[in-house]
């Protein structure tokens, strides 16, 4: 599993408003890439174009190419539903399905995609996904209870388990720790380190320390002012970005001079 993502001259629009301009980037398989930048710079928007989730917002459109192992996910005849099966996503706020138990939540993606599972397969997949999300030991005795009964951090790991249960190639995370306490955050960060053995992970974060801790590569986005499109300023190894960035803008941001 795990695929390489090539972003070529990506422009994103909301109606007539251009939100993001000219992004070029290559994301290697089995790595963690962090998107950082001030609020409104378009980093979440770029993330959501990687599995065509931005289309949920009326009027959103895209120009440019996003190649997943060479095939354009915006090409002719591509079904966004299929794209999303390859590219999983974890959101800012944990959002387990309230009507489903923990186990049903994990299996939701597979079941809703019409795959029939025997009970043994289902049990096996549940355990594998929950172990993969470091949650198994905490919930194995209460798999049939509602997912909304878990703590915030557990819920977020449940959402990660749900995302990896469909066996995607790529895992997108949109500020997955912003609503969590430090201990839960640490648990998620540990998990991200393990996940990169199998998946291409892209994470948006507001927390620069987190980007420094978990990612191999970091992309810094910035915006020139309100109403202007967001731009990719610098994309490099995390160590370079945080120690010796090429651009002054990046330097200013990571040293806390703005944003």
């Amino acid at each position, binding site marked *: 599993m795990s695929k390489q993502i090539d972003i070529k001259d990506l*422009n994103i*629009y*909301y*109606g*007539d408003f251009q*939100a993001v301009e000219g992004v070029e980037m290559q994301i290697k398989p089995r790595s963690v890439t962090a998107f950082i930048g001030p*609020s*409104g710079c*378009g*980093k*979440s*928007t770029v993330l*959501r174009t990687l599995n065509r*989730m*931005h*289309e*949920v*917002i*009326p*009027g*959103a*459109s*895209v*120009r440019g190419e996003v190649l997943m192992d060479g095939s354009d996910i*915006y090409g*002719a*005849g*591509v*079904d*966004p*539903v299929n794209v999303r099966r390859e590219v999983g996503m974890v959101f*800012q706020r944990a959002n387990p399905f309230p009507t489903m138990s923990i186990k049903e939540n994990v299996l939701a993606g597979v079941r809703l995609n019409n795959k029939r599972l025997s009970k043994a397969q289902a049990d096996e997949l549940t355990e594998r996904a929950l172990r993969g999300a470091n949650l198994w030991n905490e919930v194995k005795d209460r798999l049939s209870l509602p997912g909304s009964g878990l703590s915030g951090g557990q819920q977020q790991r449940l959402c990660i388990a749900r995302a990896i249960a469909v066996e995607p190639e790529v895992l997108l995370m*949109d*500020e997955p720790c912003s609503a969590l306490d430090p201990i839960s955050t640490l648990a998620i960060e540990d998990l991200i380190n393990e996940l990169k053995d199998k998946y291409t992970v892209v994470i948006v974060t507001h927390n620069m320390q987190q980007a420094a801790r978990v990612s191999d590569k970091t992309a810094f986005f910035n915006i020139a002012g309100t109403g202007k499109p967001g731009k990719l300023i610098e994309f490099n190894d995390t160590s370079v970005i945080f120690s010796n960035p090429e651009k002054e803008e990046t330097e200013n941001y990571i040293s806390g001079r703005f944003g």
Partner: protein
Amino acid sequence: MPTSTQTTATGPAAGAPGPALGPAVQGTRPKAVIRPGDRIFSAATLIAGILILAILAGVALFLLAQSKDTIDAQISDPSAITGGNGFLAYVWPLVIGTLVSSAIALVVATPFALGIALFTTHMAPRRLAPALGYVIDLLAAIPSVVYGLWGIALAGNLTEFYLWLSKWFGWIPIFAPAADGSVSNTGRTLLTASLVLSIMILPIITSLTREIFLQTPRLQEEAALALGATRWEMIRMSVLPFGKSGIASATMLGLGRALGETMAVAMILSPGLLTASLVVSGNQTIASEIAQNFPEAAGLRLSELISIGLVLFVITLLVNMAARAIVAKTSVKGS
């Protein structure tokens, strides 16, 4: 970030991107595939939506079609229409009766409805309040035919009150007694019907305004109290201004309900010619005229009743539109 704050559910089909507005998108990219499941399901919901349009058009259309006989008679021989003076002469006393009874009901019910809504939301003991709200909702659900039954049973008790009214306030035309100084001895007058109507729409207006009052932002209320306002001052500063448009629309809905209410009036009122006085027998409303005459009607009479139904439909339509206009004008900006 626009993406993460989007919470309303207004997205286009996930399988189909929204209207492609990016300059080059339409040219370079063919529309994404739409799955058959999505196509069938969205078509089904669309059909249901369109069906609603069709039903409403149908209401107007079929009423109009069945009114054809009346229109023909109006043109060729107006004296054939009930009353012998054409359709307008037939319908206008009914329109007046309808409007007057609804207006009285509204004037009587609204202050009480506001009082109850305020009482149950801001004044009643905390533990009692939800139960009271629930009782109001239940009362709003009591069928009008039961109100009619109740009104018949108690109408006689009002005779004494009407006598007193006509004695002291008889100089006002609406309380004038009949020529021989009497008032209706059964109490089944338009005023009685209007009062029963007001009791009927009371729970409806109350339950709507109650909801509005409950939605008053807690912070605004607390801000007022923190300034040292008494409870009544708090209500005047935050609750009432916030609820203004809601109250207006609740009242209008109540009016719409009163206009179209058939049974209570049909059962209570002993109908007659249009008179100014509300305490003697007489007057009639459109809905009640239809209900009382429909079972035996045939031919032209049937068509007449359907035509006055159309008139009622138009009146309620106008009232509802007025209500929307009022709500649009008075709604609180930016909240």
